[in-house]
């Protein structure tokens, strides 16, 4: 492995460890709320409609797939670029679906201040979305420097890819714990 690959890979690993700890803390909190609550969702609250979260899960999974394809087809610059564009579009679509989801929650009468159930739903998805915005920024940056002549382009791609997969993985865990379980 080249030195820059090791150095930047290690840096990204540290970033991902930090990110993991942040989301692990949130999930630890959720576990405590969930286990100490007498009923979940609390009495009088309808369970959340999982259609939109399911859609966003599929979207982010597909975007991760195309991100992966970008690296697989790295040798063919044009194809790689198309895959990257698709990833970016799916990422933006994910944010769109999340917004629809928040609107749906709101119109179903579940407001941010309606108690711990809605606090968790809004708070955690907001925090995740804020990180997705960061991920989108790094994708846009990667798209801007995505030229064959760019130095260490493969390393840049690999690290953005790792971050993007991380966001996908966090979302899948959130989907499973917040909406399915």
């Amino acid at each position, binding site marked *: 492995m080249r030195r*820059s690959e090791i*150095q930047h890979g*290690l*840096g990204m690993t540290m970033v991902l460890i930090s990110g993991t700890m942040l989301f692990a803390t949130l999930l630890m909190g959720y576990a405590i*709320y969930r286990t100490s609550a007498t*009923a979940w969702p*609390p*009495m009088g609250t309808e369970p959340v409609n999982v259609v939109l979260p399911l859609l966003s899960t599929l979207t982010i999974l597909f975007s991760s797939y195309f991100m992966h394809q970008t690296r697989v087809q790295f040798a063919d610059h044009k194809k790689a670029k198309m895959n990257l564009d698709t990833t970016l579009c799916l990422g933006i679509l994910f944010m769109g679906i999340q917004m629809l989801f928040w609107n749906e929650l709101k119109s179903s009468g579940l407001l941010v201040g309606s108690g*711990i159930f809605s606090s968790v739903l809004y708070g955690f998805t907001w925090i995740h979305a804020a990180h997705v915005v960061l991920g989108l920024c790094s994708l846009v940056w990667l798209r801007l420097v995505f030229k064959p002549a760019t130095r260490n382009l493969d390393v840049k791609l690999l690290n953005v890819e790792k971050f993007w997969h991380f966001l996908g993985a966090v979302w899948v865990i959130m989907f499973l714990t917040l909406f399915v379980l």
Partner: protein
Amino acid sequence: MSGGFNEIHPEPTTFWSKYIISFDHKVIAKQFLWYGIFFLGLGGMMALLIRWTLAYPGVPFPVIGNILFPDSAGIVPPDSYAMLFTMHGTIMIFYAITPILIGAFGNYCIPLMIGARDMAFPMLNMLSFWFAFLSGVVLLISLGLPLGAAAGGWTSYPTLSTLIGQPGLGQTLWSLAIFLFGISSTMGAVNYVTTVITLRAPGMGYFDMPLTIWGLWLTAILNAIFVPVLGAGVILLMLDRVFGTTFFLAGASATAGNGDPVLFQHVFWIFGHPEVYILILPAWGIVSDLLSFFSRKPAFGAKATALAMTAVTILSTLVYGHHMFTTQMSPLLTQSFMTLTMTISIPSAIFFANWLGTIWKGSIRFDSPMLFSLGVVFVFGLGGLTGLHLGTVTTDLYLHDTYFVVGHFHYTMAASVLLGGFAGIYFWFPKMFGKMMNEMMAKIHFWGTMIGLNGVFFGMLMVGYGGMHRRIYNPFIYESLQRLIPINTFITLSAIMMGAFQIVFVINFFYSLKKGPKASQNPWEVGTLEWTIPSPPVHHNYDVIPVVKCGPHELGNPNLKNGRDFQYQTEELVQG
């Protein structure tokens, strides 16, 4: 992976790129140093205001009291008192110790001591400082708010820190400032860990690194792992305060679900206990090195010291519950946390014994860095021993939230880290600025600080043992505590004395910066890599990346023939 990715970056030419948005680790280190010293002064003033109130309740604070508190004729009012101890803690921990020990020494020493030209990610390094700067600005703004800054204690437990306890904007800005500072710390940590792993000079194994680097490296690892935990906590706190979520607000569990105020305490201390070691590890590292350098003999059991520090680092992640013995934790948990806490004594005793082994029969040079290091050995010993009473459940239940706790953590975190920081400043000042500091003034500063600080913190242990509770505006409304007024007056006078002696340091610092005698390349006669290059170093540190051939503490080797009693790390180990 030693050898590294060591490019020579072009030297900046404009004022802006040289001193403000600098990518050079040496400049960023100095930025952190100024930043830290500024906040150290501010936090110190707050401490004096607190102490004044405790010694002379109802008496106006002299000179600046009337400017700060015009409505109460110069007397510190109760709400401001709560704000002062909150901000004193916050500022000292996050804005004084962290920037000086980790920001300044970390940035300055890591590349120089491992033989690198810069940090692994210079731009991230620059961003790290400016995030810290932004965070500091937010915190300073919160001091000027009409309802005052945060006043729920530096731990900011709900419900004191929710809108019920703190209706003003201060606590929100506090959370924002801490979050921004967390980003800065995490960026720094990512950088430090990567730099130490990938940029060590050829030949430098992990055990050839100076112990300073070990301390800073372990600190960075803890930072990267545990600062985000607090980050999550303060984000949720901010959501509670700004958007009306109820993460930390207890409600009717059947209908609204149940927020949990104690959860914040868990989150806070999962971060908070490693944070204690984040602050002290760099000081341990610096002291371990300096004791060897100034005793003119190899560090006793250097490998064991490094491994013991690693063991403490690992154990520090498992003991946070000892901060929460009084929160109705199950006895099973309190006993487990107590046992784990006591286990930390073992590695601590190992490196402490190594410190004593290092100075044993050494030909000690009592220069100012050594005096401060010996000071750390003394105060950290006291701090560690008083920790045993607090780690034990049975005694902690009585001592919890008394001044005994305040005395204990000031001995470990304030006294040890402060003295360690001063040792570092006196030691590396010649390298940083190319000038020598005045040794006489440094020694006066040491004795003033040492005597003052022990007066303050030992006094705190005594009044705490006497039952004085912390965070009370006027404890002497309780009849049982009135007999403690004389000791409190003594503590305050010691604090004022200690504060006054810091002026000697400031004068010495700025005078030496301008008028100090020029420093030679190696004024302390030690062999680590930073002393093989001119003081101050050139922009790219090393013209040729050094090749390391021996450990950092090769002093007093009887086989040395060239009139020196030390050898550089770039020299082959002299054998008989």
